[in-house]
């Protein structure tokens, strides 16, 4: 039974024709057209499809699209600021070479963003634990952990300057 779903993604309203069985990951990718979010295991075990819903990281492959209509969704495409400046996490991933094939990267970034928003000064152990549900087959995680730690430091430094 088709219906019009209304979503709020990266601060914008988007309508999409959906059916009750449709997964959020497929609606975001195929109907809203934001293909940065990836579908890799479709069972909630790899984290590649992670998006934020009301600031919480969720697996969009385990979420029915209809249930996400009243939540503020954020995908990797929403990380950059309006003027195109990269989020400190994105810049740190570039600086540390923390993405190889890149298929896990969007999910990694979104999980890391949720962590830093909730815990601005994480220990390396905190970061390890937060990202333990995001599988990366290429990097060996070292550079990803380095990048998140670096981004945290830069966000905090910028905040202190602003204050």
């Amino acid at each position, binding site marked *: 039974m088709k219906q019009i779903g209304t979503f709020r993604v990266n601060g914008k309203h988007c309508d999409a024709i959906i059916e009750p069985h449709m997964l959020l990951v497929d609606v975001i990718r195929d109907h809203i057209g934001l293909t940065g979010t990836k579908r890799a295991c479709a*069972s909630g075990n790899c984290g590649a499809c992670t998006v934020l819903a009301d600031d919480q990281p969720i697996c969009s492959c385990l979420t029915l699209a209809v249930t996400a209509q009243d939540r503020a969704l954020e995908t990797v495409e929403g990380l950059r600021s309006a003027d195109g400046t990269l989020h400190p996490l994105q810049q740190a991933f570039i600086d540390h*070479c923390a993405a190889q*094939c*890149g*298929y896990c990267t969007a999910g990694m970034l979104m999980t890391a963003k949720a962590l830093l928003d909730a815990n601005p000064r994480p220990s390396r152990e905190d970061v390890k634990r937060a990202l333990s549900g995001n599988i990366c*087959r290429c990097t060996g995680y070292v550079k990803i952990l380095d990048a998140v730690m670096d981004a945290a430091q830069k966000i905090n430094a910028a905040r202190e300057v602003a204050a």
Partner: protein
Amino acid sequence: MTEFAYVGKRLTKPDIYGKVTGEAKYTDDMTVPSMVEGRILASPHAHARILRIDTSKAAALPGVLCVLTHKDCPDSRFSRSTMAEALPEFAFTGERQDQYILTDKARYVGDWIAAVAAEDIYTAEAALELIEVEYELLPMILDPHKALEPGAPSVHDDVAGNIAFEMDHPFNSGDVDRAFAEAEAVVEFTGVNSRQKHLHLETDIAIAYHESDGRLVIISPSQGPHLAKKHLTKRVFPDLSDGDIRWLSPTIGGGFGARLALGVEPVAVLLARACKRPVRVTTTREEDFSGYSSRTDQHQTIRVAANKDGKLLAIEQIIVADSGAYLSHSATTATVNMQKTLGVLKCDNIRGHLTVAYTNTPTTSGFRGYGNPEGAFVFQQALDRLAEKIGMDPMEFRLKNLKVPGDPSCFVPVPLEHTKLEECIHLAAEKIGYKDKWQGWGVAKPGRYKRGIGMSVLTHASGAGGFLLEHSSCVMKVLSDGALNLIVSPCEMGQGIIGALAQVAAESSGLRYEQIRVSTGDTDVTMFDIGSHASRSMLVIGNAVAAAGVKIKEQIRDRAVALFAEHQVRVTPDQIEVRAGRITSDAAPGVAFDVAQVAYAAIYDFGSGGSQLNASGSYLSTSHHPNHQAAFAEVEVDTETGLVTVLNYVSAHDIGRAINPLLVEAQMEGSLVQGIGFALTEDFVIDPDTGRVLSDSLLTYRLPTTMDVPDMAHLLVEDPLEAGPFGAKGCGEAGLVNPAPAIANAIYDAIGVRIHSLPMAADKVLWALRHGEGAAPGGSRVSGQYL
């Protein structure tokens, strides 16, 4: 010493921006107007003949465009491995062409029976359920040893005794029997690796469609689209010619060797040709597990002999490899295992024999290291056992038997040109503190948590010159702003080759790195190349790029003479320097130009001499230029649970020269963690009663996570290789070879028990601790058997 502008610098790779913004486009992110969705029906039986197949209900479902079976496939057989096209005709018989796209006889659970194209994915999946198949169940064979026994069920009717491939080591040498008879110490070690899955996060996928001129376009994450195109037209669809296909390989979501074999591309083409619509064929993660492509499990017995001074006198290696239902890369990986395993140390008496058996299990394939990690796991433990028998430090034992330039290399009979393995061993040993940590053989460790240290050494090729069609070419053109368009065909699966080649291009041409624009992944645009594998891209393609860059620089110098003349400076081309986009001359201090001036003038020349700066470069490799590595692992074993934790890992790599140390380090870190998974957790489990893959999700097949990353250091030993571009050797695969054997040797040092099969999971280690290693020789198929 030459000071480079870009080579050796830790530069950002150009493709990473799109990966952190979500803009990079992978195959699944692409759509073609009027595209429909394709899905494949897989066999639920390990061995069954199709008696009747009725597709009428599926075909009648609204939205279904076509339903195809074996009756609709070309009558020519092919292999998933495309390597036959890179080998000289008849040079190597291990490339059996043994399968059809859709089969009339299922040879494993997951074998392809039928394919559907429909307007949307839900309809395609509904159609699969409406296909009626009546099977005649056949006796199945799941174990390679049993498959080789007389009277075993035949996997292929035209193959006697299930022997898919068999050969002696091509470089058998010396008098092995005599050496064993006269040696003072002889030991044997038997072991088997597991079928590690590539687990590229992007599952198998392909899009196929016809362009307006009738040509066929394929979009898929292939590691070698040129070779795949040749194979597809020569073997799979012989009615097509090489020029009928344009193959696009976009951003690839991980490869590790899996994309070296054909995936769902033949099905996509079959469907697109049948329904005359663009078709995208997708697979699920479960299908990726049960379908095909994993490391080949190679059951090995290795016998080694030495005299009491520690000279390695003889090696004998017997391999029984399990190809699964179709041959694919299993024969070639077993051959590479022999070459690398028997070729890493100096030994005059060598004998090897391999047999590849067909079984009713998913097809195995090539995986990073391509046989080398499989061999190293057994051989490096055999070496330790031999060192123990003669009472020698395992590091000293290896140092005593190192090859020097001039010895036969791992690719005998080509002589070894260059090795820095000795330096690697010393450097890594120093870094991890080996002298203090290794306490001698048989020293019992106190307490529940026991620590141990172990080592392993390797040699791996940079390309397979002399064996494969090992050449590559590139084209360069300089744009009007001084940017350089490098048209070249490595496949970027994340390894960073695009960035490294851009560094080589910038260095050799004298242009700016930030202005190198790489075009790749389109067989209509790039020159022929056999793909990204065998750690070949840096050396082979890099040399082609370096050669073209030199020509561009010459053209810039020639044209810059006139620029200097405009400033009343008379210089000859050889007095002109081009570096990082600037043109200067010692003969005219203070006068400098931007390359953009020359490039612009070349294009927008309304006189008679106008032509864009452009060049091509080619390189043919006739040798394999081995890289080397030594690695040490420190582990802790919980003797109450059997859990092994890697605490620290240090490798030192003989890399020739690192074009970009950041990227090399990234490769080593990634391959180490992949190697820790291979060593400790990644278990491909097949149900012995049904042949079904039980570890078919990321929940049941356990990959390392952030919590499994040990302290690590990857040291580079740089000594430029004469044949390498700016001295570089390949490195992509090497990091995955040493982890399993180094960890295995460290486990033995900790608890005095050797583990004979991978993964060395907690249950297996605990069983070996309680019952002795002889009680748990292990198989690669059944997990939990030790509980």
